[in-house]
């Protein structure tokens, strides 16, 4: 059966970053993002430190800047919002090329773009070096409730299946003369969304039967995820440690 591969975000590789246990990378990402969020927006040099950290992680993982840049595109709606801020925010104004910009708005916009980009780039490095099953077992290792990881797992597992069904329904519509370029034909899509929902609901029921048939009684079983060694934790936490040092210096200075 065809279908897109769900590990579209993953880049095959054998770097140290690829080999680190998922739990340590998830921990490092969480701490790094927290450091980025807490960085005072005026401390430009601290943001440079964060950016250098991400660039070194990319270099270590063998990721090309173009790859990360392409994935950063998802951020555009937030960037647009940030560009909007200097025009609408109140407070003291600054005249630039005849435009009256709010100083508070400029800081606000910068804050969103800088922190958003850094956080997103760090997540891209994580997902490019860790497969989805590893991420899920890493989350379990970090004691995220099994209910949450199971739901995430099912979502990943069935995303392709449902996308495949949607694709087939689209082909069936095209084959019978439907031309989806025109907005007034959205009704056909709305109807097929309803049909897709019913189909997915029915599949959910069958999956539940299949689980029950193999002794499922409401509790997902646990599997031993790989246990990270102290050295691996130290290696992974090196990156957020530098970021936190930068934050501490920026706040105390």
């Amino acid at each position, binding site marked *: *059966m065809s*279908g897109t*591969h*769900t*590990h579209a975000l993953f880049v095959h590789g054998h770097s140290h970053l690829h080999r680190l246990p998922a739990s340590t990378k998830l921990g490092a990402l969480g701490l790094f993002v927290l450091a980025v969020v807490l960085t005072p927006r005026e401390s430009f040099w601290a943001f440079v430190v964060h950016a250098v950290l991400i660039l070194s992680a990319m270099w270590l993982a063998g990721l090309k800047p173009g790859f990360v840049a392409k994935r950063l595109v998802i951020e555009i709606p937030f960037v647009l919002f940030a560009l909007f801020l200097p025009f609408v925010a109140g407070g003291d104004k600054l005249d630039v090329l005849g435009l009256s910009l709010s100083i508070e708005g400029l800081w606000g916009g910068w804050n969103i773009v800088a922190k958003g980009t850094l956080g997103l780039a760090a997540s891209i490095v994580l997902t490019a070096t860790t497969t*989805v*099953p590893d991420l*899920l*077992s890493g989350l379990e290792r970090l004691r995220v409730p099994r209910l949450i990881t199971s739901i995430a*797992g*099912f979502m*990943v*597992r*069935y995303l*392709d*299946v449902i996308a495949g069904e949607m694709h087939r329904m689209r082909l069936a519509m095209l084959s019978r003369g439907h031309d989806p370029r025109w907005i007034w034909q959205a009704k056909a899509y709305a109807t097929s969304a309803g049909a897709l929902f019913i189909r997915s609901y029915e*599949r959910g029921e*069958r*999956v539940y*039967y*299949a*689980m*029950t*048939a*193999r*002794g*499922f*009684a409401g509790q997902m*079983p*646990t*599997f*031993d995820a790989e246990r990270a060694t102290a050295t691996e934790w130290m290696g992974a936490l090196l990156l957020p440690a530098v970021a936190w040092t930068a934050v501490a210096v920026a706040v105390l200075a």
Partner: protein
Amino acid sequence: MSVPALEVVDLSYHYPDGTEVLRNAGFHIHPGERVALLGPNGAGKTTLVFHLNGIFRPDSGSVIVAGLPLDDEHVKEIRRRVGIVFQDPDDQLFMPTVGQDVAFGPANYGVEGAELQTRVNDALSAVGMLDVAGRPPHHLSVGQRRRVAVATVLAMKPEIVVLDEPSSNLDPASRRELADILTSLDITMLMVTHDLPYALELCPRSLVMNEGSIIADGSTRQILSDRELMKANRLELPLGFDPNLTL
């Protein structure tokens, strides 16, 4: 004779809307037998399958698996003993990796650690899929997924494996590979199928089901050669296929 691996006695069931699906269906299967369950669409075959491990409960009649009656007390053990391979492997394979999916069943029965790993490896080896243990199921072909689905059931060490349309959606080579695997397994089997040559090849004995009852029970070759019986139950052989000339 030995205790039947599976015994179905006078099973009746109707849907909540009143449609009668099973009507006094009864048969038994002895350890080591491979039996095909044949019948037209809507005969009640899949409904019957769901009764074999207590997902559906009958209005009357009973199911006994290796001497153990299907009731509230034994339903969990019955589900270990009766392994069902669903028609759509996407329904059966729901865990992030193939290995975890095969481990799901035994893990629910408290198997863990090294023994669980052995179970997973043995089951995947039996279907020739050990090398995909770490991969997500959606990266496999339909044929590979169907084989992994068989492994998920084998890992529970069942008394009987029930397969719902095992050859559907498979290309001829995958269909052949699956047949080779199924015949290599030393296990009791009930196979629901519309693929009559497949039934003849894999199952010496067949049951014919129609309108919720077992109409015929006998050697597959005899059943497929009985034109009256075949016609009355909407069963048709592929053009030019003569059950007495093959094998």
